[in-house]
């Protein structure tokens, strides 16, 4: 998919070969836009149904699909050098790291939390539920 020659010249003379880059055709962009709109409709539709414990995974799955389409086509990642893909995946790895380590920690001290003792929330709930 990627021009191998371009990636190997990375270290030496770059002035010579940084051209226009890949240009995505208008029909592709329009088609992608339609796909995204359709997926948005799917999001709304899925939100209206109860999938039980799978709720979160259905929502995240659709969101991930939309995100990938945007990154691959709108952001040209599909036609880019693999290096940019590595950078993209690498940055996702950092996000994973943040969330994973923070979650490992919070799960460790769950039992020390005052269960249900959030005064403001409790008050609001009492107001809402007569």
């Amino acid at each position: 998919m990627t021009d191998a020659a371009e990636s190997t010249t990375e270290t030496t003379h770059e002035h010579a070969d940084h051209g226009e880059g890949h240009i995505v055709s208008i029909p592709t962009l329009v088609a992608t836009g339609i796909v995204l709109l359709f997926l948005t409709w799917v999001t709304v539709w899925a939100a209206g149904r109860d999938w039980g414990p799978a709720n979160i995974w259905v929502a995240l799955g659709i969101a991930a699909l939309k995100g990938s389409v945007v990154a691959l086509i709108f952001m040209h990642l599909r036609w880019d050098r693999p290096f940019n893909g590595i950078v993209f995946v690498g940055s996702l790895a950092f996000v994973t790291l943040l969330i994973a380590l923070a979650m490992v920690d919070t799960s460790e001290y769950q039992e020390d939390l005052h269960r249900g003792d959030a005064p403001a929330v409790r008050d609001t709930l009492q107001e809402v539920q007569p």
Partner: protein
Amino acid sequence: MSMLTADHPGPQSNYLTHSRGILSWLFTLDHKRIGVMYLISILASFFVGGVLALLVRTELIAPGETIMGQDTYNRTFTMHGAIMIFLVIIPSIPAALGNFVLPIMLGAKDVAFPRLNLTSYWLWVLGAIFAVTSMVMGGVDTGWTFYAPYSTEEARTGVVYVTVGAFILGFSSIFTGLNFIVTIHRLRPRGMTWFRMPLFLWSLYATSIIQILATPVLGITLLLLIVERVFQVGIFDPALGGDPVLYQHFFWFYSHPAVYIMILPAMGIISELISIHSHKHIFGYRFIAYSSIAIALFGFLVWGHHMFTSGQSAVVNAIFSAITFSVSIPSAIKVFNWLATLYKGSISLNTPMLYALSFIFIFTIGGLTGLFLGTLATDIHLHDTYFVVAHFHYVMMGSALIAMIGGMHHWWPKITGKMYSEVMGRLAWALVFVGFNVAFFSQFMLGSQGMPRRYHDYSDTVGNWLPEKTELFHLYHVISSIGSYVMAIGFFLILFYLLHSIFKGRRAPANPWGGRSLEWQCASPPPHNNFDTPPAVGDCYDYSVLEWDAEEGGYHWREDVPHPNGEET
């Protein structure tokens, strides 16, 4: 690119005289002018932050209320921290000096995205305005860390302004980082491979990676903080069902790497200064370059060491302590390589070199005291005491800012085209160096003896203080305050002679120190376009091709060595 400056410059024209009028500065796309505007703005912020620091030190010179009450004190140290970190140290080297030097070092005409560069500056100004607004609105007393749930309480209206300010400053930082990465990737001249770049560029590259990866997390965290405050959604505040320790995770995920945003470019400057003023090839180029990248990546994995006592679980504490030590290795490598560069060099003790040597002195102390804080058992005692205050001032002020001041002296002839007084330079350096160490070394003992940070008062007449503590703390506070005044005199002296040099200084030669990187090959100050033709690149640490010219007061290319461009510059 130069739409605003379309007139034809004469042969003597440089970037300063290229076009006139205030608008030609405010809306310039020239990286050099943007760098100079950044420099002036950052120094002005440094002045404000410095005055706040002196107020804090004066308040603490005696137990009890000395010059201000506790509320004013809390606002003062908060604004001191917020200004120094977000407005001064983070942008100081990359945005001011980096902006000026980076494209010239690459032999380029400008950065890759000049408009983004200007946007970044104006976002900085906007962020600064928000910070000042919060001061006018009654101030913020949360500490620069904005820990929840203290910061999400309703009484603190100023918090929203400061966090919005920090959010905007984050974007300014991201734009600069993005710009530098693209510039280094795309605009390197023919012949400058990755491993022929000056080390300052390597460090700016590593810094930019952190700016791009970490700053968005700060943005999101601050947004969540504002959302919680404004819409009362429970995220961090336990009263709403949130988790305050989670805030600390999010906050330090940015703010720890931010320490490396501050120190990495400083290390880059030191690599340049040590080599150039020793007139010797930098020792272990590849190890220094790789260690910058290693610090940038490891820096992301250690944020939890700010939270050893926070209620973070013991397992996670152990993990973070272990990874924390890994960051110390690349820093140690750099220090040893600098020492090896001095070995058999030909060392000129110019003012920039004095700053570079004092960097090694101060950074060694700052780095070694980090060992006490990375070690679990000792950090439990030292956390949130003056030991930590002393440690991060040794790293952030004594190292990052000292390197910035050193770099400013190093490139001053290039930026202004004028030489400053060496005598005054050395005198001011001595005041700053001695003042700094007096002010902050005493705080190590203050902290290890148990004085908590952010205390307005340590008098045994109020509350439950044992007199033995008050007496000892008083001694170290007095020493520390005296040191801070000495340092302040030094900084004022610098301001004085640098301003003096602009008007009365000797004209600077193109290459006053004997540097080999490309910025020393164009005139001082550089012309608007930096280079008419892309210059040829050699080994930027090979000084054997230069010789001293007493008449010019600078260095030039040796007659008997053919110039790669085929002509003299």
